[in-house]
């Protein structure tokens, strides 16, 4: 028989791994302490020396008084201190001591005398009803503590060892956690409970790592060093001080990463949402983004009377790609026309430029301009290690998307996508994703075309509100197509920069959010504070709203 079996049989759970359900992410390490169950009264024992027995009972009550006095002194708010002080006075009650002494004289042992002494007042509390009836639990707690002290058993209730610890319990009720000193509790581990139990909700709100449904947690002896992984649900029991220290460092760096501008976008439960930056030139580059979600190339062309040459373009793209190292850069091909007219592409007079030859449509007339640009992007991409994707603006049909993707592949650019700015494209998102590798939703133009409201027209700003449920419906359709095909569907535009709306977009199933770099930290923080299931709930509620105002009201506390 292997040695480990012998060790385990001799001292169960002293060392080993316990697995539960991680309900609040984070790592913690430290000595574990159990919420001890209330003591059971043993069979009555005969009393030989009533004086000594009385002294034992009085000493047990004094232990409770001392413990609660210490806690009252450490309480951080005056309400908690008042409650504890009132409990001290109950345990220190002279009438209680007299009753206990009388019972011992009548033949009770100390533990039974204490129980009987409290029982008198318990009846009175119950009879009084209302507030006092609710305090019966406090009285029972005092009795259990005094009886445990009398029997030499661990104090029931949430322990207070006087230093930080991992709390082990069967389950935690609100009453247990109301006075929980969160400066002392490192993590919560329960044998019962579930992902929506009080323990889980409390832990997430406090940012405490927590594991529920962890069988065997209460077999761990008080003071044994454990590590807790609130994401995987794993609890390692009987680790050494070195592992504790290492775990604490890992947690410190995990928290550092979360607050670090370079950290990846994640919901509270770890669902990744890439946070990308919108840029127009190398000047806009930032370290805070996981990549570039929208590289607008038209700035390079503006103010030029002629198309920029291949070499000029290669140099400009290369500057951006090099700065991004191995990260993703999504290049949008020239988006000329409408509000961005270019002299060398000057179209004939158009009565409605926004509905005219713009974006990819320019390639109908000038396929050579797109060809040169794709070639320049490909040359620059080959010279650097950036993960270069290319997408076309103003795609309306799967046919246009397929034509663009074919030209990208011919140029040596393997990852081609389409922007979704026209409702027709959103409605046929599945068809588009059969011919391209990803979609990126340009919410500004998609609003304009969905609501037939000119982006330049201030009087129609309410129609262009990115919280408009109709816009969210189109985004939802694109995201659903992305999930069905396993292809990325991102959002670039103002919508992604609103932390509250970013949660809704995440809930709709969008896989990346691209925004101005300075908007990223707030969006990252919002995501980190909400699990995916909550985002999905917000998304359903926003979709069900009748107007933008009602959709926004889905997350009142978040709009900052």
């Amino acid at each position, binding site marked *: 028989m292997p040695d480990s079996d012998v060790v385990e049989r001799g001292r169960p759970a002293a060392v080993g791994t316990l697995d539960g359900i991680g309900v609040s992410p984070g790592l913690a390490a430290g000595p574990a302490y159990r919420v001890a169950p209330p003591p059971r009264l043993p069979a009555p024992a005969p009393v030989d020396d009533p004086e000594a027995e009385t002294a034992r009972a009085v000493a047990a009550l004094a232990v409770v008084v001392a413990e609660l006095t210490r806690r009252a002194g450490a309480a951080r708010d005056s309400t908690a201190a008042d409650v504890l002080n009132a409990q001290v006075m109950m345990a220190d009650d002279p009438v209680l001591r007299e009753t206990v002494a009388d019972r011992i004289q009548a033949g009770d042992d100390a533990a039974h005398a204490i129980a009987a002494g409290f029982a008198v007042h318990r009846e009175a*509390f119950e009879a009084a009803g209302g507030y006092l009836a609710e305090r019966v639990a406090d009285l029972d707690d005092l009795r259990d503590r005094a009886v445990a002290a009398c029997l030499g058993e661990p104090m029931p209730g949430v322990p207070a060892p006087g230093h930080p610890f991992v709390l082990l319990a069967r389950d935690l009720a609100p009453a247990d956690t109301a006075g929980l000193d969160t400066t002392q509790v490192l993590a919560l581990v329960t044998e019962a409970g579930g992902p929506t139990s009080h323990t889980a909700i409390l832990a997430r709100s406090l940012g405490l790592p927590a594991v529920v449904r962890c069988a065997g947690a209460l077999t761990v002896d008080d003071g044994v060093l454990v590590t807790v992984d609130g994401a995987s649900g794993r609890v390692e029991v009987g680790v050494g001080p070195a592992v504790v220290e290492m775990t604490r460092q890992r947690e410190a760096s995990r928290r550092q990463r979360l607050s670090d501008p370079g950290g990846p976008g994640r919901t509270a439960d770890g669902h990744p949402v890439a946070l990308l930056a919108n840029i127009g030139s190398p000047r806009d580059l930032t370290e805070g983004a996981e990549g570039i979600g929208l590289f607008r190339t038209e700035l390079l062309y503006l103010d030029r009377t002629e198309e920029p040459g291949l070499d000029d373009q290669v140099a400009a793209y290369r500057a951006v790609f090099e700065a991004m190292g191995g990260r993703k850069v999504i290049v949008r091909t020239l988006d000329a026309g409408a509000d961005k007219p270019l002299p060398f592409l000057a179209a004939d007079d158009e009565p409605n430029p926004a509905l005219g030859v713009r974006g990819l449509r320019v390639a109908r007339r000038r396929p050579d301009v797109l060809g040169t640009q794709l070639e320049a992007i490909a040359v620059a991409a080959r010279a650097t290690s950036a993960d270069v994707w290319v997408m076309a603006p103003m795609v309306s049909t799967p046919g246009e998307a397929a034509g663009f993707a074919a030209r990208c592949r011919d140029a040596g650019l393997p990852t081609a996508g389409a922007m979704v700015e026209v409702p027709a494209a959103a409605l046929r998102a599945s068809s588009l994703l059969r011919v391209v590798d990803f979609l990126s939703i340009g919410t500004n133009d998609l609003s304009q075309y969905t609501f037939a409201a000119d982006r330049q027209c201030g009087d129609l700003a309410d129609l262009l509100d990115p919280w408009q449920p109709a816009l969210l419906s189109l985004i939802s359709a694109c995201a659903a197509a992305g999930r069905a095909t396993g292809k990325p569907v991102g959002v670039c535009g103002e919508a992604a920069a609103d932390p509250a709306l970013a949660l809704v977009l995440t809930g709709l199933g969008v896989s990346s959010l691209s925004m101005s770099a300075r908007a990223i930290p707030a969006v990252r923080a919002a995501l980190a504070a909400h699990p995916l299931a909550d985002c999905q709930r917000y998304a359903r509620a926003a979709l069900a709203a009748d107007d933008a105002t009602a959709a926004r009201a889905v997350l009142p506390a978040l709009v900052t």
Partner: protein
Amino acid sequence: MPSRTVVVGSASGLHARPAALFVAAAAAQAVKVTIRTGDKRPVPAHSMLSVLSLGAKYGTEVTLEADGEGAQAALDELATLLAQDLDASEPAAAPKPASEPADAASPGHA
């Protein structure tokens, strides 16, 4: 036996904080003071559990009793304390001796 009957002035009744303040004040007296509601059995005023068990609410009439030297002063002090709202963050300054609850409202009172 000297006694005072007073109406509980604490908004939450004679519970946690008000009860603790009252019991502590009673324990500090040189004489033993009892408290009762109506014609029920009087209980020791320095016993937290007994005082709580009265279940006295805001507006409940309670009667304090004490005997011996200093009984009058002790009763005055405790009665004044009970009449205050002890849930307020700070109880009023030390009570003046020899004031009947009715006096406070009488126009001739300084």
